[in-house]
């Protein structure tokens, strides 16, 4: 189906927001990152708002959202609830930081759970039986993407910490987050292979006899060696570069701003290209209409 760019941006920003919130929660549980919490919370608020604006851009009549919005089985309603929960958590974090209260363990744990939950809700809203390619593999990709951004958020926050003496350990979370993302991207292929598009044999569009009928024998082949291959392989290579950056940073003490910058750019590329791929393989169960 056609790439829905506002939704690509929306889901990307949600994963970044969840990643940042998850990242500072993990750091807080390790009694680290106190001096970057304010920056992190402001960044998470900005990305959440940016994602929200992007999602509104997708609505053709956003002014009607007060006209009965809230059908609970709808993924959009569930996402809105998730966004509100994250916004509330951001405000709580901000209050704690402003009042210089001790963060403790409860808030980071709740934030971590909600950040993961937000990604699950986002991915779940795209799980549609009518689009065989949008199966559990898509949800895993979004979870992996949250891990990627969570890891990079920790790395970035450590790097910008004033007076921070960078240690190899600080990039460990980024390494594991990127590795999980890579595994999830590769895992999507067997999930695509198990997806089934209805086969009508030979058929023709009698309204446009010059249009070549579409036949999808295998969504996995379509993604890896067909029209989706460009996006798939760019995403894989970009994720591998992020992984290489984390490995290089682990081995190199001191400043690694260049590696971090390259990693973030490649993470953005990987995140966007894989989302484009999701739309490329998002065929209806019946492709003959």
């Amino acid at each position, binding site marked *: *189906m056609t790439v*829905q760019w506002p939704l690509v941006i929306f889901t990307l920003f949600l994963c970044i927001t969840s990643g940042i919130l998850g990242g500072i929660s993990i750091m807080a549980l390790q009694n680290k990152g106190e001096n970057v919490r304010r920056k992190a919370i402001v960044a998470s608020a900005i990305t959440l708002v940016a994602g929200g604006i992007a999602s509104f851009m*997708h*609505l*053709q*009549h*956003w002014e*009607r*959202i007060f*006209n*009965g*919005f*809230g*059908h609970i*089985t*709808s*993924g*959009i*309603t569930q996402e809105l609830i998730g966004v509100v929960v994250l916004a509330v958590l951001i405000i709580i974090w901000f209050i704690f930081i402003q009042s210089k209260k001790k963060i403790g363990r409860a808030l980071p744990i709740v934030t971590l759970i909600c950040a993961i939950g937000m990604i699950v809700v986002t991915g779940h*809203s*795209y799980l*549609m*039986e*009518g*689009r065989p390619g949008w199966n559990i593999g898509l949800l895993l990709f979004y979870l992996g993407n949250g891990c990627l951004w969570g890891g990079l958020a920790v790395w970035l926050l450590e790097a910008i910490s004033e007076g921070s003496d960078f240690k190899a350990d600080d990039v460990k979370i980024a390494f594991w987050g990127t590795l999980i993302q890579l595994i999830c991207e590769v895992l999507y292929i067997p999930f695509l292979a198990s997806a089934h598009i*209805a*086969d*009508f*044999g*030979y*058929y*023709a*569009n*009698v*309204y446009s006899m010059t249009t070549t009928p579409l036949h999808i024998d295998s969504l996995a082949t379509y993604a890896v060696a067909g029209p989706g291959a460009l996006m798939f392989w760019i995403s894989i290579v970009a994720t591998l570069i992020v992984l290489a950056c984390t490995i290089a940073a682990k081995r190199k003490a001191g400043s690694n701003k260049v590696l971090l910058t390259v990693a973030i750019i490649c993470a953005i590329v990987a995140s966007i290209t894989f989302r484009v791929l999701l739309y490329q393989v*998002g065929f*209806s*169960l*019946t*492709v*003959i*209409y």
Partner: protein
Amino acid sequence: MTKKAIITDLNRCVGCLACSVACKAMNNVPIGCYWNKVVRIGPNPVPGGSGQWPDVYMYFLTMGCQHCEDPECVKVCPTEASHIAEDGTIQIDRNRCIGCQFCVMACPYGVRYLDPDERVAEKCTLCEERLVQGLLPACVAQCSGNARWVGDLDEGLDSFVGTYDPLGKQRKMVDFIEPFEESDIHHLPDAGNHPGFAYILRDHEWQGGDDQ
């Protein structure tokens, strides 16, 4: 309970596209968009045949909203603009639609689209405004092969009626069309949505799989 639906006898359909034209004319469907589309299935090889002509067959499949029993489009709609009406059909309240297009994504048959002018989701309404007046849906009324029949699934096949004969008597599907078996009744592939529309296809292999 009521569950209005259309049954199409594919052995009678000649692929004249009159249903599609009538639908576009009646419902002012924009150019390039369809509520009811005719797809030519085949020519596919006859099982056990040579694989070459004349051992091939084809039929015309009329596709549109299947007015499903458990519609995915209704589940994903955040404003309940897409809803199940009292007559069991799936309708869209245009004033509630926010144009999020999740219903378009969720439909297993790709029969919904975003109206380019109104920017709301659109699809077949089963000519609900005609049904309440006791009229036939435009596609049924204009079917030149008497292939399309409208009725109530809950009342059974006896309730399905079509066009009027020259004496002004309305034709009943079970009396008019050629005999068929239960195994000749097919549905589009089911993704858990339980499509309401049915197709009758005799002596040919139903394509698309996932038959109910």
